[in-house]
C-alpha cells in the first residue's frame, strides 16, 4: 500500500504528474492523499517524491516514530520522504530468525541490476552473484530466482497464445505479469478481462512451486516453508495477498519486500555487499535463461515469448535473438513478426498511462494485433516503485537507462537465452508439470480475475 505522509507533503503534486491512474487527491499546495481504491500501487509517486523530512523542521514527528509507521527497520539511516510504501522487512527479519521456518526466497530479474546501487556502486550495476551471496548470508535456506518462473511463464503463456491464435480464442491476448496492470484492467476495463492471459505472474508461479515442487525436492513439510519474494515493485505484495493465490494449499507467497528493503536488511545485518564474492542461485528453481531475465525491461516478456514461439511453431532456430524492435522506452510500440506462415502482430505498452487509447481500440474491435505486453512502470520493472530511488531527477533517468542496459547485457552473457532451452524447465515439465497448459500447470500456474469496477 502507498501512503503520503501528511506532515511532510508540500502539495507540489509532482506525484500526481506521474500517477497513471489519477489516484493522488488533494488541492495544490495542500498535503495530498492516495485514493486506495483507484491506486494500482505502482509506487512511481514514491520514486518521484522529493519532499523530505528535514532535521531543521521541529514541527514534525520524530524519525523513530516515522520509521515505525512505515514498518521500516529501526536501523535505516536514509532520509524519509512524504510518499512511501508500507514495508515488510521486519516480517522477513522475524522469519529468518525463526528456526522452525524453512525460508525460501525468490528475487525478481530487475532487482539484480539495481540492488548494488544502494551500496554506492554505479547506477545499474549488475550484481546477481553478490546478491545471491548476500541472501545466503542473511540466512535464507533456498536462494531462488523469479527469472526461472519467468522462463516457465513463457512456456505457458507462449503456448496459450499459440492456442488462442490457432484455435480461435479471445484476441488480442494481454500479458498478465504486471499486477498493477491487472488491477487497472479489473477496475477500469473489466469487460476486457478475457483478453488477459490466464497465466499467473512469475512471482506467483514461483510461490505455487516453492510449497509443492520445491518442498518435495528439499523434502520439507510445505507448511514449514516460508516464501519470501524480493521485488522491484510495490504492488507485488498486493498480488501475493490476492485470496486466490493459494494453489499450493498454503499462502503461496508469504511476504514481499522491495529492492530497497532488501538493501535495508543487508545493511541491518552488517553485510558488506560490495566485498562479497559472487555465488550461484540454488537449483532447480534458480536456474534461468536470458529470456527470463529480460522480463525486467519493457518488451522483455514479448521478446522472450517470441524467441520461444518462433521455434515452437517453425521448429527452426530463430535467426536473430536480439529483437530490437520490441525494445525501447516509454510509450507504445507495434511490430509485425513473420513466424512461419503466421504474420504475428504485437504491441508493447510501456507506462500504464499510455494504455487507455489502445484498450479503446480493442473495445472498438479496431486493434490490429494478436498480443500485447503491458508494463505499468515507465520502462518496465527496472523502473519499478520499489527500486532504489535516485535523489536527482536526472539520475532517475540515468538509472533507468543503465539498468535496462545491464539487463540486456546479462541476457547476452547467459549460457541459455531461450526459455524452452532451460534444462531445469525441461526437467520440471518432465518430473512434475507434464506439459504446458496441462492439468498440473492449469492448477498451479494459471488463475482467474475479478472485475472490481467502483460504483459510480
Amino acid at each position, binding site marked *: 500500500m502507498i501512503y503520503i505522509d501528511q506532515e511532510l507533503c508540500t502539495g507540489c503534486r509532482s506525484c500526481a504528474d506521474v500517477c497513471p491512474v489519477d489516484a493522488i487527491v488533494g488541492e495544490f499546495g495542500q498535503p495530498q492523499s492516495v485514493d486506495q481504491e483507484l491506486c494500482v500501487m505502482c509506487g512511481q509517486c514514491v520514486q518521484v517524491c522529493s519532499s523530505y523530512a528535514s532535521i531543521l523542521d521541529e514541527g514534525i514527528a520524530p524519525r523513530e516514530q516515522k520509521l515505525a509507521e512505515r514498518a521500516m527497520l529501526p536501523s535505516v539511516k*536514509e532520509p524519509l520522504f512524504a510518499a512511501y510504501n508500507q514495508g515488510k522487512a521486519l516480517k522477513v527479519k522475524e522469519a529468518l530468525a525463526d528456526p522452525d521456518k524453512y525460508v525460501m526466497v525468490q528475487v525478481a530479474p530487475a532487482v539484480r541490476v539495481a540492488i548494488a546501487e544502494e551500496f554506492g556502486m554505479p547506477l545499474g550495476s549488475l550484481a546477481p552473484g553478490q546478491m545471491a551471496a548476500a541472501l545466503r548470508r542473511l540466512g535464507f535456506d533456498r536462494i531462488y530466482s523469479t527469472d526461472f518462473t519467468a522462463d516457465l511463464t513463457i512456456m505457458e503463456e507462449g503456448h496459450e497464445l499459440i492456442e488462442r491464435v490457432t484455435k480461435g480464442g479471445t484476441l488480442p491476448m494481454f500479458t498478465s505479469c504486471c499486477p498493477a496492470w491487472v488491477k487497472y484492467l479489473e477496475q477500469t476495463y473489466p469487460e476486457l478481462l478475457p483478453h488477459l492471459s490466464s497465466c499467473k505472474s512469475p512471482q506467483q508461479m514461483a510461490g505455487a512451486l516453492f510449497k509443492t515442487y520445491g518442498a518435495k525436492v528439499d523434502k520439507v513439510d510445505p507448511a514449514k516453508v516460508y516464501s519470501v519474494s524480493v521485488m522491484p515493485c510495490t504492488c507485488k505484495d498486493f498480488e501475493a495477498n490476492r485470496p486466490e493465490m493459494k494453489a499450493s494449499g498454503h499462502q503461496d507467497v508469504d511476504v514481499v519486500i522491495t529492492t530497497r528493503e532488501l538493501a535495508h536488511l543487508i545493511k541491518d545485518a552488517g553485510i558488506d555487499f560490495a566485498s562479497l564474492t559472487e555465488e550461484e542461485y540454488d537449483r532447480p528453481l534458480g536456474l534461468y535463461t536470458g529470456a527470463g531475465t529480460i522480463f525486467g525491461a519493457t518488451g522483455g516478456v514479448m521478446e522472450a515469448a517470441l524467441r520461444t514461439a518462433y521455434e515452437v511453431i517453425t521448429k527452426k532456430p530463430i535467426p536473430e535473438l536480439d529483437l530490437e524492435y520490441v525494445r525501447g522506452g516509454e510509450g507504445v510500440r507495434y511490430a509485425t513478426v513473420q513466424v512461419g506462415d503466421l504474420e504475428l502482430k504485437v504491441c508493447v505498452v510501456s507506462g500504464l498511462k499510455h494504455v487507455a487509447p489502445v484498450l479503446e481500440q480493442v473495445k472498438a474491435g479496431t486493434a490490429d494485433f494478436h498480443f500485447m505486453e503491458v508494463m505499468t512502470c515507465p520502462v518496465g520493472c527496472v523502473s519499478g516503485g520499489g527500486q532504489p530511488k535516485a535523489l536527482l531527477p536526472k539520475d532517475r533517468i540515468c538509472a533507468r537507462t543503465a539498468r535496462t542496459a545491464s539487463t540486456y547485457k546479462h541476457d547476452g552473457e547467459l549460457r541459455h537465452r531461450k526459455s524452452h532451452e532451460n534444462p531445469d524447465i525441461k526437467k520440471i515439465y518432465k518430473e512434475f508439470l507434464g506439459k504446458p497448459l496441462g492439468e498440473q500447470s492449469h492448477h498451479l500456474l494459471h488463475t482467474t480475475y475479478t472485475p472490481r469496477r467502483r460504483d459510480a
Partner: protein
Amino acid sequence: MCALNAFVVADPNKCIGCKVCEVACAVVHSDVPVKTVGQMTTPIIPRLYLVKTAEVTMPVQCRHCEDAPCANACPVGAITQRDGIIYVDQEACVGCKTCMLACPFGAMEMVPYYRNGERVKQLRLTEETGEGPVLQDAFVASKCDRCIGVEGGPACVANCPKEALRVVRPDELRRTRNLEAALAVLESVKNVIG
C-alpha cells in the same frame, strides 16, 4: 571593475514547492558521493530553504551581498569572498550564530557538521549528563556557495523541474533590462508620433 557577485533566485510564480532544489543542494554538497536515497547515511542538509506560506512558495538562499553582513559580523573571519562567492570556511566557524542574526534573508543556518558521512565530534566540549560527560557533536554555519566548482553550475537551478530558479548576474540583468526599457520608450515615442 570586477563584476558584482552573482546569486540564485527563485520565481515564486513557477515554484511548486517540491524541494528538489533542496535535495539537489544537499546531494552536491555531500562529501561522500551519493546517487540514491539508500546511499545516504546523513540527513538532507540543504543550503537553501523552501518557504511555504499561504501567500508564497519559493526557496530562499543567499544573495551573496557585496557587503555581506554575515561576514562583517563574523568574529573569527570564517566568512570571506572567493571568486564572487560569499563563502563559509566551516573549519574556522565556531558556531556563534552571529551570522544568522546578521543575515536579513534567513539564508544562514547552523547545521550539524558531517565529514565522510559521519558526525564530527567536538574536540573537548562535553555535555554533563547523568552518565557523566558526553562529547558533543559539532555544528557549523552553512549557506549557499553557488555550487562553487560544480560542473553545470548551481545544482538547484540545474535540477528544478519547473525551471523556477536562475542565476542572476546583476550586470547582465541590468543591461538586459536597460535595453528592454529603451525599446519600450522607443515604442511609445513611435506611437505618439506615428
